[in-house]
């Protein structure tokens, strides 16, 4: 029975509900308490969400009871906090107490209750945002501008008594920025911002939090405009500086462009290379050392082979002559015919040419002994010389001269020009060699004028010995001349070197001759000088006295040529004179003087010049080391 009754009741209820649903009406849905908050821990408010109202007006009530109490209370204030809220004022708020709150929804159809919510005010504190946020731009002197902000705690919160302790937080951003810059401010109610962008508008907000609660909402934005840092004056200064530097840059670029090269050379001067005055490197590349060295001012270097040959050959000849003459010299008295003992068997042909009778007075002498040989023209060459030498060696006198004859190359190919009368000092050694050769040639062919020329030759070359020469001692005169030459130059001395080396035995003392004339043959007609010697007087006659010296036997020191009388024109007796007065200039060993070489020459007294002029001059000059 009971079961049937219960089931009937349930059926009816369901029917009633269904009827209600069919009509679109239903009991309210279950409300839900959404949120309870306390702004200052003195009051609190709860909000609920109502459920479905069921199509009917629904009444919501909030009921609560506190921990430790049994009575149930209803919400004291539904209005203050807005709809669906319940505001609990201070009187109804207890801290550290649990509230059990329930919302009841009631409509015509029914009612529903929410789940009880356990609320402890201690833990639901969420204050209001701080109030009165003020921003101020402070610009202290000599310091950077900063933003100073101040705010006040929310009005409801009691901080002074310490009931609530608040902590603050600020945030700011430029107006156009997207992200905020947040700063924790602690319990202070003011804050400074230093890093600001000038010329920007900043927005600032602040919020607070109780010591054990929730953060408040952000305060409304406060804005402030940051002024520009750069003043008008600074801007003008910077513009001026920029323009000035641009102008300077342009000037520098233009200067570099125009004078680029000269500037580069000015900054980086080229490294100088070595330079020698007169030195042409191109010649060095070509290998012409002669030209190169001539440019340097070095003359006559290296010496010409001619001179060397002359020098060498002459040296050779003298050595052999001395050897041969040594034994003979001791035997015979000077004054005999000169022998061409000086001729070296090994001597070259040059001597032969020098021994040409036309050339030298000595050849005259020689011609007597071997006229054929000595009278030959300059074609006489070496092969004959040895013979003459041998023959002359017997005489041992006349040959001396020949030995002293400077070497004249047979061929006249060398040095064709006859040097003009010039101071021997001016002549280069090289030219002197040439001149000797020329003299040999010319002595053979030159006519008449040569003597005059010889007379006219520079007194320097001939010195005073020429004028002082007596006829008898042609050789001496010439020798003196030769010697005078020699005194001038060292090279002449070189020639006489063999003379110096070897004890050249001079049979006769030297005597001076005077050039009488030059015959057509070019032979020099010499007159012995008038001297104290009685022998000389014999020769004073022009015809007698004049001897023909067509040959230079030797060249003595002090540039004196020792002439050999032509055997044809010589009178033997005239030459057999004792040692004549030696020229004072003669410095040679008297033994060396072989005046005996002035052997009487046959035949003519006339001088055979031949090439005498040249000869004399050349020899003199040569002795001087120079050919004019």
């Amino acid at each position, binding site marked *: 029975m009971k079961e049937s009754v219960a089931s009937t009741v349930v059926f009816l209820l369901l029917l009633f509900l269904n009827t209600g649903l069919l009509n679109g009406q239903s009991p309210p849905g279950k409300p839900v308490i959404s949120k309870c908050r306390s702004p200052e821990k003195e009051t609190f408010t709860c909000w609920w969400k109502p459920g479905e109202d069921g199509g009917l007006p629904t009444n919501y009530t909030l009921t609560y009871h506190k921990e430790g109490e049994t009575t149930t209370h209803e919400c004291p204030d539904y209005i203050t906090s807005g709809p669906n809220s319940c505001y609990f004022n201070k009187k109804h708020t207890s801290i550290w107490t649990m509230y059990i709150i329930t919302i009841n929804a009631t409509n015509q159809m029914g009612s529903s209750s929410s789940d009880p919510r356990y609320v402890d005010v201690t833990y639901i504190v969420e204050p209001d945002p701080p109030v009165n946020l003020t921003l101020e731009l402070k610009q202290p002197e000599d310091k950077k501008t900063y933003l100073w902000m101040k705010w006040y705690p929310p009005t409801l919160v*009691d901080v002074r008594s310490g009931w609530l302790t608040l902590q603050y937080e600020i945030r700011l951003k430029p107006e156009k920025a997207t992200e905020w810059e947040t700063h924790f401010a602690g319990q202070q109610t003011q804050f400074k911002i230093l890093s600001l962008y000038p010329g920007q508008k900043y927005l600032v907000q602040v919020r607070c939090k109780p010591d054990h609660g929730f953060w408040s909402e952000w305060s409304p934005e406060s804005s402030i405009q940051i002024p520009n840092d750069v003043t008008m004056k600074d801007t003008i200064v910077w513009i001026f500086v920029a323009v000035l530097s641009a102008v300077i840059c342009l000037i520098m670029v233009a200067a570099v462009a125009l004078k680029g090269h000269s500037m580069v050379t000015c900054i980086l001067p080229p490294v100088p290379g070595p330079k020698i005055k007169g030195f042409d490197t191109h010649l060095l590349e070509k290998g012409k050392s002669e030209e190169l060295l001539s440019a340097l001012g070095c003359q006559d270097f290296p010496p010409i082979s001619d001179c060397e040959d002359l020098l060498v050959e002459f040296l050779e000849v003298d050595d052999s002559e001395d050897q041969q003459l040594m034994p003979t010299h001791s035997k015979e008295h000077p004054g005999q015919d000169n022998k061409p003992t000086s001729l070296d068997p090994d001597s070259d042909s040059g001597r032969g040419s020098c021994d040409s009778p036309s050339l030298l007075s000595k050849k005259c002498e020689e011609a007597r002994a071997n006229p054929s040989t000595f009278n030959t023209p300059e074609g006489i060459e070496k092969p004959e010389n040895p013979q003459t030498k041998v023959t002359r060696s017997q005489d041992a006198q006349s040959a001396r001269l020949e030995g002293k004859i400077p070497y004249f190359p047979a061929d006249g190919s060398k040095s064709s020009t006859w040097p003009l009368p010039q101071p021997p000092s001016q002549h280069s050694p090289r030219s002197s060699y040439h001149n000797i050769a020329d003299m040999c040639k010319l002595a053979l062919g030159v006519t008449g004028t040569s003597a005059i020329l010889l007379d006219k030759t520079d007194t320097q070359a001939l010195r005073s010995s020429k004028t002082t020469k007596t006829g008898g001692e042609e050789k001496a005169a010439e020798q003196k001349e030769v010697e005078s030459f020699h005194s001038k130059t060292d090279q002449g001395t070189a020639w006489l070197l063999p003379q110096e080396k070897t004890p050249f035995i001079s049979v006769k003392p030297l005597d001076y001759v005077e050039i009488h004339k030059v015959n057509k043959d070019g032979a020099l007609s010499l007159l012995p000088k008038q001297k104290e010697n009685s022998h000389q007087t014999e020769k004073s006659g022009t015809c007698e006295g004049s001897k023909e010296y067509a040959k230079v036997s030797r060249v003595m020191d002090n540039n004196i040529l020792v002439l050999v009388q032509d055997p044809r024109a010589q009178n033997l007796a005239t030459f057999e004179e004792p040692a004549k007065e030696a020229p004072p200039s003669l410095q040679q060993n008297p033994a060396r003087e072989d005046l005996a070489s002035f052997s009487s020459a046959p035949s003519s007294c006339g001088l055979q010049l031949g090439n005498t002029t040249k000869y004399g001059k050349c020899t003199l000059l040569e002795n001087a080391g120079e050919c004019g």
Partner: protein
Amino acid sequence: MDDKGWSVKAGSLLPLLLLVSDLLLCQGVASLPICPTGAVNCQVSLRDLFDRAVILSHYIHNLSSEMFNEFDRRYAQGRGFITKAINSCHTSSLSTPEDKEQAQQIHHEDLLNLILRVLRSWNDPLYHLVTEVRGMEEAPDSILSRAIEIEEQNRRLLEGMEKIVGQVHPGVRENEVYSVWSGLPSLQMADEDSRLFAFYNLLHCLRRDSHKIDNYLKLLKCRIVYDSNC
């Protein structure tokens, strides 16, 4: 046990650091050495004592709140413990002010004594809490370390408060009154649900009382030190 002790020590450093940094930020208080007991001429100002006390009370409440939240999240979900934890704190017999007006009406000496009572009432429960949390099967280190830290800090706070009381109204020594906690058997119950509820309830009450102490001290500080003008 030693390993756990070390980990607890390490874990306790973090909240301590947080407390120190928080308090320093809040009030810019430089930690001063407290006078050693027995020193005759040592005078620490009341201000410094209160500052130190507030720092400790604040720190203790933070630890308690975190511990409760951790426990609630981990163990008490869906069990309806909150419904049962009503009027179950052992210190509820102590008549403590319930709102600001009541607190401001209480004389600061009484309020100090009240603080002392509450602090003393929690010595025993905290000790057992640590012991029992350690014994839990899957006791998280976070809860255990905090429990250990709270116990230590609470002891120190008590010492500080006694100093303050000695300075505020010296000479009067109150009988040590405190609430006796008898919840230990509950913590040791075999039923897991009951035991967990016991822990939950204990942590709930601890959180509340630590907040009370912190609030009272701040009130007193502002009233005594800053003359109600914090």
